[in-house]
């Protein structure tokens, strides 16, 4: 897994690539925690761009859920961009579709924070 970090105005975008399995989970958690720490008043507007994620395991999904809760508690928001079929199925299986806002274009995802 590789993560590229971008900032657009008050929104942070993580472009994730590869498989989120094994030790990647912890690595992803660290990236998100770091963004949380540096967010103004801890309020993080986060887009996870999943376009190039081929696969994610239950630990990866766990990080998403944990981040959802932490970020929400600080009045921020986490949204998912460009979910491929595999990740979409995973989220559907885990009955988490209603939890995560999903967008198909970066413009829409960013607009959702305005």
């Amino acid at each position, binding site marked *: 897994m590789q993560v590229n970090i971008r900032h657009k105005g008050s929104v942070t975008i993580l472009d994730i690539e590869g498989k989120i399995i094994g*030790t990647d989970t912890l690595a992803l958690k660290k990236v998100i925690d770091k963004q949380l720490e540096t967010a103004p008043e801890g309020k993080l507007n986060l887009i996870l761009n999943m376009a190039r994620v081929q696969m994610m*395991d239950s630990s990866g999904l766990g990080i998403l859920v944990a981040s959802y809760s932490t970020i929400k508690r600080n009045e921020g928001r986490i949204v998912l961009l460009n979910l491929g079929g595999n990740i979409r199925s995973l989220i559907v299986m885990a009955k988490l579709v209603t939890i995560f806002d999903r967008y198909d274009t970066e413009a829409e995802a960013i607009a959702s924070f305005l």
Partner: protein
Amino acid sequence: MGEQVITLSLPSSMQHVSLLDVVITEILREMNFAEELQMQVNLAVIEAGTNAIKHGNKEDLGKRADFQFILSEEKLTIIIQDQGPGFTREDVADPLDPANLLKSSGRGIFLMEECMDSVDFEAKGTIIKMVKYKETPDPEEIR
């Protein structure tokens, strides 16, 4: 091709999950599984391997996670064994229970069972046997 058995044995480090990933990915490619099924088996194997290493062997490098891949014309059978104390499947909470939906863990076994055609726990759960057919079989025919 008859039955072919491939075995892989790993020291219990999460570092090696990527190795397990490339092995199962290549076996599925070699067997020509449909792409959607490949992803399901791949996920189930990663979940079972992670559990063996993390929960079973507690990431003790002296303990091993053993994998047996049994390739046949119509199906792939995977046997995962750890050297831990085992556990009881029935004690694991249902991750789809509304009370558990926002928990950050507890979805691994559920996903294994969703993704494979069968998942059996043996020797107190220290041995897991999972089967995936290349064509979804007639439910009548599985035993």
